[in-house]
């Protein structure tokens, strides 16, 4: 039982990370390869504040998010002006540079050995409560003016510009929003595992989040959440075939990308309206 809760907690943290990737990659179409770097920024900032400077946890959370925002601004401000594929390159380089930095400031961060002995302040309930809040924020963002402008500029940047959308500003706002959310996920991670190491935040993690977004369906927030549950849960379910589980995971992703390119959920969103209709249909059928 303990084990299942731990897996579910990690899945919850991943859901928040994936939501960040969804906003940047799914909604806006910017391929951010360094999303996990914000995760590490959040995790390390809060952990160091609490452990080395005895800052109270509740103060460390906004501080970590602020540092995440600052990092997001430093990277985002110059890069949103670039072409899309260059954005992926820059965010990718940023992620790798952050890891190199963490590895090499050993007296502050513990280097490759990692930072251990972080008090455990988060638990299952806090993580899933945060998931609910972040999900609500993401849904709200998607349906706000900003979200619609994001969709517009993803579909056709030139046309969006012609309609008077400040493309760079919208991109930057989305990027910062996602950066703050991902740093928050990092905080949750650090204070759940009580141990952080640079190796856990490489570009592979960012790539995995993006894979999850695509498997779920680039147009569907529901898809992202369910794909996270499926794809982070799957390796655990396949634990009996421990050696082969990542291979199986890869094959499943390849099959989905090849045979159902719009993702599992396509454009479908799970809404109250849909549930109500389902209820009515169910009643009629019976």
């Amino acid at each position, binding site marked *: 039982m303990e084990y299942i809760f731990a897996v579910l907690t990690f899945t919850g943290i991943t859901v928040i990370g994936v939501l960040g990737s969804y906003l940047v990659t799914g909604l806006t179409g910017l391929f951010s390869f360094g999303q996990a770097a914000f995760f590490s920024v959040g995790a390390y900032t809060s952990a160091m504040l609490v452990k080395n400077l005895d800052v109270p946890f509740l103060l460390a959370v906004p501080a970590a998010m602020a540092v995440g925002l600052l990092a997001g601004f430093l990277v985002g401000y110059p890069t949103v002006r670039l072409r899309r594929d260059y954005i992926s390159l820059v965010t990718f380089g940023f992620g790798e*540079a952050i890891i*190199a930095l963490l590895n090499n400031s050993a007296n502050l961060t513990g280097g490759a050995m990692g930072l251990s002995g972080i008090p455990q302040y988060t638990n299952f309930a806090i993580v899933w409560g945060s998931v609910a809040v972040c999900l609500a924020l993401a849904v709200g963002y998607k349906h706000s003016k900003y979200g619609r402008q994001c969709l517009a500029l993803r579909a056709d940047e030139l046309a969006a510009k012609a309609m008077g959308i400040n493309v760079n500003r919208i991109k930057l706002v989305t990027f910062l929003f996602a950066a703050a959310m991902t740093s928050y996920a990092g905080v949750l991670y650090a204070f759940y595992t009580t141990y952080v190491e640079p190796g856990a935040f490489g570009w*592979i993690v960012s790539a995995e989040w993006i894979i999850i977004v695509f498997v779920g369906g680039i147009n569907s927030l529901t898809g992202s959440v369910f794909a996270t549950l499926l794809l982070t849960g799957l390796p655990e379910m396949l634990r009996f075939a421990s050696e082969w589980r990542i291979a199986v995971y890869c094959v499943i992703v390849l099959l989905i990308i090849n045979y159902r*390119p719009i993702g599992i959920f396509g454009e479908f969103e799970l809404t109250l309206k849909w549930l109500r209709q389902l209820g009515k249909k169910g009643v009629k059928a019976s």
Partner: protein
Amino acid sequence: MSIQQLLNGVSLGSVYALIAVGFALVFNILKFSNFAHGGVMTLTAYIGLAAALFFSTWLSGLTLFAATLLSAALAGALVGIVLERMAFRRIRNNNSPVIYYFISSITMGILMENIVTIFASSTFYSYPRFFELTVVNIAHVNIALTDLLMLVFSSVALMILLWVLYRTRIGLAIRALSFDVNTANLMGMDSNRVVMATFIAAGILGGIAGVFLGINYTLYPQMGQLIVKGFIASVIGGLGSITGAMIGAVLLGVLEVTLIGAVGAGLAPVFVFIVMLVFLLVRPRGISGVIVQEKA
């Protein structure tokens, strides 16, 4: 900077060039960054090791080295074919957006890395010593023999590639396809065959690069992540440009050796990133100046 350092940088750069060109070849045609190339390098490096151990009963020295390199290159070609069929053929025929190629290539990269882990476990391996001699002294400059071989073989492989690209029919086809896929198709070219040929060429380069990386460092399943170097080199040189990737790679090699001397091996990646960022902001088309056109 001493000549010694310059030489070290250039020989490091020559391996990066092999990686970067294999990467740039695919980018050239399909316009996406092929991260599966790292997996190809890992897989072929291990196959090369198996070949080296297999042949070592009959051969030694240079012949053994050549046999290893040849088997790895052949394996690379095969892996390239499988990769194209499994991961990209269907996506290409569906005219999917570039981002799907990304996903497919990353997934294939992780898959290949995982296959290596399953069959060879995650322990470190190293190639057998091919030569008695380790250091060559040319005009008071010491150069490690493996570095020298790396320089020679990489240069030869790249020369052959350039010859194929600019002097043969298939090379012409590859260049035509990279210019405009639709027009090339309308002219009656079989784009499947040309893309296949590109993946074979990239695979062969990946195989050679894999063996050299294996000799220079050690073999471990995550060695494919050195693809990052090829990627950065391509950015400096200009994405999709073959000659640009070569120049970028040599520059990157020299830059890295210099930076390691100046700020230490740890912080060098940070500075490399800064250089890359500056390049992207100041001259996003890279050194070569050929920009891959995007629809307005």
